[in-house]
């Protein structure tokens, strides 16, 4: 057990280290950052000055070790644009993104799992087919398109502009993007919980429970569903991991003041420190979500605990 936890932690650490290194390499090789930061018509001396100030004149491996050292000290650099630390910029935007992502995940989970269960219990009939048709539609629909459709319907049908409330976070403001973002995962949750439940419902232990006189409702709630939920945990983990990265497009469409918007803006202005930190944060969320899933499995599935 301790071995299991240690080896998972170690793997997470290696993954993060690899991400950090890859981010470093990509950004260094996608053009000279000093030239990008200096004014467009700056002479070479000014660019060199920038490079020296940023430590870009040193050999690559020195830059790399300095960079790693800074990260371990918690120093993720400063935005050239505003002069604020990239961490504080990120933290400013984080609540909005979590609010949006959390709400959309909640929608996806409740609606998706309910639909999936209904479909599984009505296998093969009209309800099942409708749910499946909806779920294909849901994850086939690109969210930039669906988002625009939502804005269009709001404007034409209800004379309300849903395309963004500026920098404020409000109930009315969050619903359209949350629905848009939640739609795709609703489809996959519905599909996944349907097939998982169908598989469990015909397992020998559910039939054996019937032979022991346990009612249909009890078999479903106490035997089939908890077992069907186990593979769902992996899917939920993936959703949690994509909480920050998943909303980039939707935030753009709805002008939602979250991390996604910050990322797009920072890429456009070549604000390296901010981009680096956001990419790292995205990777770290995914790694930690996976770690969480692994540990969650330990709790919910005694078979994994035993290994």
């Amino acid at each position: 057990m301790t071995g299991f936890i240690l080896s998972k932690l170690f793997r997470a650490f290696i993954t993060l280290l690899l991400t950090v290194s890859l981010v470093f390499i990509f950004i260094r090789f996608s053009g000279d950052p000093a030239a990008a930061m200096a004014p467009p018509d700056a002479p070479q001396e000014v660019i060199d000055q920038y490079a020296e100030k940023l430590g870009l004149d040193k050999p690559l491996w020195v830059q790399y070790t300095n960079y790693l050292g800074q990260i371990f000290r918690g120093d993720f650099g400063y935005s050239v644009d505003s002069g604020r630390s990239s961490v504080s910029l990120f933290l400013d935007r984080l609540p909005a993104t979590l609010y949006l992502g959390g709400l959309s995940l909640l929608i996806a989970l409740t609606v998706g799992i309910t639909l999936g269960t209904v479909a599984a219990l009505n296998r093969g009939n009209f309800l099942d087919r409708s749910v499946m048709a909806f779920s294909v539609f849901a994850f086939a629909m690109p969210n930039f398109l669906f988002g625009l459709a939502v804005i269009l319907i709001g404007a034409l049908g209800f004379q309300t502009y849903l395309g963004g409330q500026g920098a404020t976070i409000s109930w009315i403001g969050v619903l359209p993007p949350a629905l848009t973002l939640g739609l795709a995962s609703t489809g996959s949750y519905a599909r996944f919980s349907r097939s998982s439940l169908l598989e469990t419902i015909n397992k020998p232990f559910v039939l054996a429970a019937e032979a022991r006189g346990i009612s249909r409702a009890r078999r479903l709630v106490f035997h089939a569903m908890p077992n069907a939920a186990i593979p769902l945990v992996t899917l939920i983990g993936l959703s949690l991991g994509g909480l920050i990265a998943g909303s980039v497009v939707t935030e753009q469409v709805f002008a939602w003041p979250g991390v996604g918007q910050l990322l797009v803006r920072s890429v456009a202005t070549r604000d390296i420190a901010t981009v680096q930190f956001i990419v790292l944060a995205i990777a770290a969320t995914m790694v930690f979500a996976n770690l969480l899933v692994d540990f969650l499995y330990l709790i919910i599935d005694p078979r994994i605990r035993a290994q």
Partner: protein
Amino acid sequence: MKNTNTAILELSNIGIRLPLGADREWAVRGVSFSIFPQQTLCLVGESGSGKSVIAQAIMGMLPAALPLKEGKIDLLGKITPEQRSPEFNLLRSVKMGMIFQDAVASLNPIKRVGHQLEEILLVHGVSRKERKPRVLKMLRDVLLPNPESSYNSYPHEMSGGQAQRIVIAGALLLNPALLIADEPTTALDVTTQAEILELITKLKSKFDTSVLFITHDFGVVSDIADQIAVMKDGEIVEQGSAQNILQKPQHEYTQKLLKAAILDASKEKLEETEEILKADAISLTYKKGFLFNQREFKAVQQVSLSLKAGSTLAVVGESGSGKSSLAKCLLRLESIDAGRIFYRGKDMTNQKGVLLKDFRSKVQVVLQDPFGALDPRFKIIDAIAEGPIIHGSSREKANLRALEMLSLVGLTPQSAERYPQEFSGGQRQRICIARALIMRPEILIADEAVSALDVSIQVKILDLFEDLQKRLGFAMIFITHDLRVAAAISDSVIVMKGGKVVESGPTPSVFKNPQAPYTKMLLASAPGSGVGEVK
């Protein structure tokens, strides 16, 4: 014994329909039998005979696709299971308990078994205070060594035998009048099987229950039955008292099943031939896990064996004894960590390239599961001809040989253009044998090659192996858990336990005069001592 004349369960003229387009119209038809207090009725038949459908009908658990169309089922003269209502279902679950072939799978994998047993009492209205003591008492009754810790275990933490005890405990918890057991020992090792059979017999009198025991194995039947009903293709072909049927079987089919249950080690002796394959103290260790999480499993330890040309060596052992790992080592599919393998005196242990390819063509394998062993998208002829083509034969030549092989294993040339799905298990195993033999192997390794087959088909495939061996002269290593199969086919035998060889020698002497305590125990546990003596 009270009321010996009133039947606990009475089936009269049961008919259950199969869906349109099935291979026959009725799943079962015209089935009648009665079970009396404290009696065990064995329903014997092969797969597809309809015996499990009868159990489902009695429990009121028939799938909608298989409706009960004819006849009547009376339980204690009150309950007619064709009525499907929650109240009847509840009553039925009080009066009858059921146990299944795969005990571990019939328990919820993520709940403690104690809680699962308590749930039965809960839904039948037993108060919270009473539940746990009753479950613990029941766990003692099924002779689990440590009831308190069993109560807190999860199903995967138990062996097949322990899990079956739990399921039996659950079935008897409400003191039912009838226990229905559907192949409850088929998935178990022989020694465990013997224990479970003994337990069922003991509990039958302790709880004053009757037993409907469904099985395909006449060995098991002879150990426990009071009454026997033999089923074939949905009908009962013979029924009567155990004594009558075991001693004077009337129907040809019953006689055939009975014959297959006898352990007969009187195969004629083979003349001495040269040694073709030799393993010298080979070991195989599986390593699992990563970094902080490593584990080792010693699958094969210091196993030596010698195979003579044209002879058959049986490798016998229970599950986990390392028999299949040994086969993988001999096939060079796993690389061993110690010891040497010799083929015709040449060291094959670390051989690579052309020599290994050549060795592989000389050593062929037939596996247990004939359904998984054939690619469903390959026509039969392509599956059989693939080997020679890989080893450089032209397609025309290989196809011609493949047709020859098909007739050799008793299949028509028309089979060649069909796909595996169109064949039965026994036919598929014939195809697998043809596929192995087209390589003109000198050694054929059969890993539980008849274990998944019904007994009557088992007999035919064993005959086929023997006949082909006489004609083509290959040597065989026959891996099996079934002592009767080993006795029927082998010239010499090695008995394995925990990756080690505990006994080896010529088959008749090992079976008639076993030396190792473990071999003695295996032989004593083998069901069917009442069917016929060890000859």
